[in-house]
């Protein structure tokens, strides 16, 4: 069966949800092989196997963690050469994107970025990828006729489903060239993780914009009532009201949740580029003419300062009714 390499995204062995999505997708294309780079395989093994990894390649060594992506790319290129996979799936993180870009040049392979779906193609041929482009205005299907198809897959492309794989583990000795030992990480300050779901992975996102006036209290309260991630528009981020890592839009994160709640956001094209593919869109805005209302499934024209707390309270009551003990 065709081997499909899946680059594992993890933090010290804690496997991120996107990896389980990639393994689920890979099973529709062939036999998934997880490529694990770094430390913590003991914590990762069970998850990788339970989502269908038939093989797990473990690549470790100081060169792979001390330097930036060049050694990882060399290692992956060696693995691609050894295994001749039918495709390589990588998560849509900045680092994996750079790895994918370099791997494409190194192996003379076509690259597809930000795929929202990957389907089997013609027998023996490239998988067929689906992308959402131009601020979600178009859907494009594409193939990779040259080299080993390398596909950067967006979060939430599929719902992860478990299916036990053999998980046969293989350590890979990596030979890294001197040329790859150039860009170094000299300092790393881990961010304190918010208790909320990760923005790009969340089922529900509640975002605030200019209309918050800088106070995200009501936005965060609604998000917490819904178990949602918090996002922000560029206007809010540029005003210094919320950190850039929460920005939804063309120059920030692209999200595709089941439910997107835009509050105090007018819906400029830059913002729509980041959220237009959400399944259900809800907006609260004072301005009835705001372009965001052209997209919504449900909208409230009103002041978020009164609408959001009322909604949060009503959600709390509804949840109280459903879960009397909770």
């Amino acid at each position, binding site marked *: 069966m065709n081997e499909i390499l899946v680059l594992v995204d993890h933090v010290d062995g804690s496997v991120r949800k996107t990896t389980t999505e990639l393994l689920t997708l890979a099973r529709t294309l062939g036999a998934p092989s997880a490529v694990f780079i770094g430390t913590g395989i003991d914590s990762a093994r069970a998850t990788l196997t339970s989502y269908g990894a038939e093989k797990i390649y473990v690549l470790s060594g100081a060169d792979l963690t001390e330097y*930036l*992506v060049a050694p990882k*790319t060399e290692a992956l290129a060696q693995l691609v050469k050894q295994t001749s996979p039918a495709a390589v799936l990588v998560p849509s993180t*900045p680092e994996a*994107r*750079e790895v994918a*870009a*370099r791997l*494409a*040049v*190194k192996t*003379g392979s*076509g*690259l597809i*970025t*930000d795929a929202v779906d990957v389907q089997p193609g013609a027998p023996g041929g490239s998988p*067929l990828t689906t992308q959402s*482009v*131009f601020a979600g*205005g*178009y859907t*494009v*299907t*594409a193939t*990779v*006729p*040259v080299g080993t198809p390398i596909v950067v897959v967006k979060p939430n492309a599929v719902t992860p489903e478990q299916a036990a794989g053999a998980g046969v583990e293989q350590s890979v000795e990596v030979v890294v060239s001197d*040329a790859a030992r150039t*860009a170094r*990480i*000299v300092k*790393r300050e881990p*961010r304190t993780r918010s208790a909320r779901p*990760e923005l790009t992975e969340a089922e529900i996102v509640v975002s605030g914009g200019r209309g918050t006036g800088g106070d995200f209290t009501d936005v965060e309260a609604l998000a917490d009532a*819904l178990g949602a991630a918090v996002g922000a528009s560029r206007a809010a981020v540029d005003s210094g009201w919320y950190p*850039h*890592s929460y920005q939804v839009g*063309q*120059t920030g994160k692209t999200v595709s949740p*089941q*439910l997107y709640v835009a509050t105090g956001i007018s819906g400029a094209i*830059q913002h729509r*580029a980041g959220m237009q593919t959400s399944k259900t869109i809800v907006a*609260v805005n004072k301005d*009835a003419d705001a372009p965001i209302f052209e997209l*919504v499934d*449900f*909208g*409230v*024209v*009103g002041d978020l300062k*009164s*609408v*959001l*707390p*009322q*909604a*949060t*309270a009503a959600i709390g009551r509804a949840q109280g009714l*459903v879960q009397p003990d909770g």
Partner: protein
Amino acid sequence: MRIVVCVKHVPDATGKRTFDPADNTVDRAGVDGLLSELDEYPIEEALRIAGDDGEVVVLTVGPDQALDAARKALQMGAHAAVHVCDDALAGSDAPATSLVLAKAVEKVGDSGGAVGLVLCGMASTDGAMGVVPAMLAERLGVPMLTFAAEVSVDGDLVTVRRDGDVAIETVEARLPLVVSVTDQINEPRYPSFKGIMAAKKKPVETWSLAYLGVDPNLVGLAAAWSQVEAFTARPPRSQGTVVIDEGDGGTKLADYLAAQKFI
């Protein structure tokens, strides 16, 4: 130091962007174009790093109108422009573009002094792949620091701060290298009247693939390593229910979310 900034001319995002049905490529003729907004940041950063004695060369690859993007960079203060323009380039994908950029960067270095730093934006605002800078570094065989929110240069040591989701990292490499910058790094200037007038006298060179020694069979649509099979316009979202808040907007919102099983 000589700095090359790679910039792209893109269809205006507020215009009607579409594809050319003849070959499934981005329609660049039917819509107004401009300098990709995210490329203003590396131009600004290059001007800052170059200071009074450095030189900033802006480099663009594309059809005739792509020169407008380079011209804007000249108006902002870049010293010279190189426009790689060749009919064979139409439909080039990211790997081909990176090949042409790499050859052009080397050529800039051959004519007028070594290039220390190549600056790029984090992505274009049309294709938005965000992979060309890394491919360019791979082609040039030099280090790359991506997504810089802050750049400092001390001799030949370049240090970059990047604000990742998991951690804030300080990363470093030595010149020559490629750096891509985010829109958090600076506030790009607007061209001044003086800048616009001065730009008219700045050197602009147009280079062909033959001049760069690039085989035309390696670029363009036919040589692309990835291929668009089909494109379809997403059906416009049909507008749902919009209610005016009359003191019960929040309750109605909660009712809707409950009906849709989000609660």
